[in-house]
């Protein structure tokens, strides 16, 4: 288990020494969310309606932005070879990398979302539900994205391929994530949506490291 924390700490430390890459996706999220109210106009009713969807689409695209870099540098400098030859379980190390990706990419989005949500005149209840749905949804995005990243590793033009591969799998997360906030606003209650998000998170957490490990082994053949 300690190897999990070793890999998480390693990736966090690496990210701290090349901050531009991390800030890239966070900045993208802020820009997308900030531009919409300016472009659409100041009608509160309209903004309230599109707010959750815009923020969720922004979060989804921001996550995708950094996916192709997830394993790439480790692949190029040979670190992945050493991970494959490590006596530790490869899945645990991959889970460490996924966790680090989520901490660097998902968590900032969860923290920023309520601030940006204010621009869309979302109520406090809606803002807290937005946070909860992102908190459950962004780890799924990281897990599923990691599978795409491992499968396209070493392929030229892999960035586009990842989008094609991963986007259809992101759609359910987007539907139920943004839907949770809208359901709460409309008075139906968001419990069903939250349950479904959780039901997507658990299998993603469990299966993604194994799928990634298989993908990485193929990439290094």
């Amino acid at each position, binding site marked *: 288990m*300690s190897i999990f924390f070793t890999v998480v700490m390693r990736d966090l*430390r690496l990210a701290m020494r*090349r901050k531009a890459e991390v800030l890239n996706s966070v900045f993208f999220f802020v820009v997308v969310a900030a531009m919409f109210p300016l472009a659409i106009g100041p009608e509160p009713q309209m903004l309230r309606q599109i707010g959750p969807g815009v923020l969720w689409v922004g979060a989804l695209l921001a996550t995708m932005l950094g996916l192709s870099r997830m394993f790439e540098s480790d692949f190029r*400098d040979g*670190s992945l070879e050493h991970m494959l*030859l490590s*006596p530790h379980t490869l899945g645990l190390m991959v889970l460490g990398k996924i966790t680090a990706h989520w901490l660097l990419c998902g968590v900032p989005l969860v923290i920023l979302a309520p601030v940006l949500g204010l621009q869309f005149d979302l109520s406090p209840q809606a803002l807290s539900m937005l946070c909860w749905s992102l908190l459950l949804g962004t780890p799924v995005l990281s897990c599923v994205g990691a599978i795409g990243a491992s499968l396209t590793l070493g392929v030229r033009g892999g960035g586009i391929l990842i989008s094609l591969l991963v986007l259809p799998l992101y759609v359910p997360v987007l539907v139920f994530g943004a839907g949770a906030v809208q359901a709460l606003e409309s008075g139906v209650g968001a419990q069903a949506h939250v349950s479904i998000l959780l039901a997507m998170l658990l299998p993603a957490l469990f299966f993604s490291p194994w799928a990634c490990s298989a993908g990485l082994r193929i990439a290094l053949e």
Partner: protein
Amino acid sequence: MSAACFQVQDASVERAGRLLFQPVSFVLQAGQALHLQGDNGSGKTSLLRALCGLSTLSQGHARWGAMSVSADHHAFKREVFYLGHALGLKDELTALENLQVACAIAGQTLSTTAAQSALQAQGLAKRMHLPLRVLSQGQKRRVALARLQVSAARLWVLDEPWVALDQAAQSALTDLLNAHVAQGGLLLFTSHQAPALGHAVSELRLQP
């Protein structure tokens, strides 16, 4: 502990539907070294990677003692140390951090003092707190070789270990390899230079 013995039988690697080299067989016992030779592109690196289990042999098989490398890969990984052309080091981390992380991934706990003395032995005493990107190619290789120095693996598989090293580092590496073989370790390496290892080194040439 099982007797250290690495057996390779009729091994070859296939690329684009043809065998890279004629199948090779050899047995490496404790305290023996094998120098794998061949022209550029003859498949030396591919063979070494396949023997470590990073890829699969297209034909033949490799055994460590009684167990098969491909079937018992998990147990085999504890016994093998592989160093290829890519060093597996991070430019953003310092030499010391790199060594410690690499050892942790290789399943080895290494105290900070042990890591420092390993780097000192490689002549990097003043460089160990610098990020790796400011070090020269040869100094980076020395950091990778510091891993070799602290490795507990019995089978060392080294792909061109002398490349980019200066005279002093080359002879230090040769001493390290000699000591490993003298202590009953196994050594399998490729090199285009003729290294003066103290022990009898058998040679194997890959034929296209």
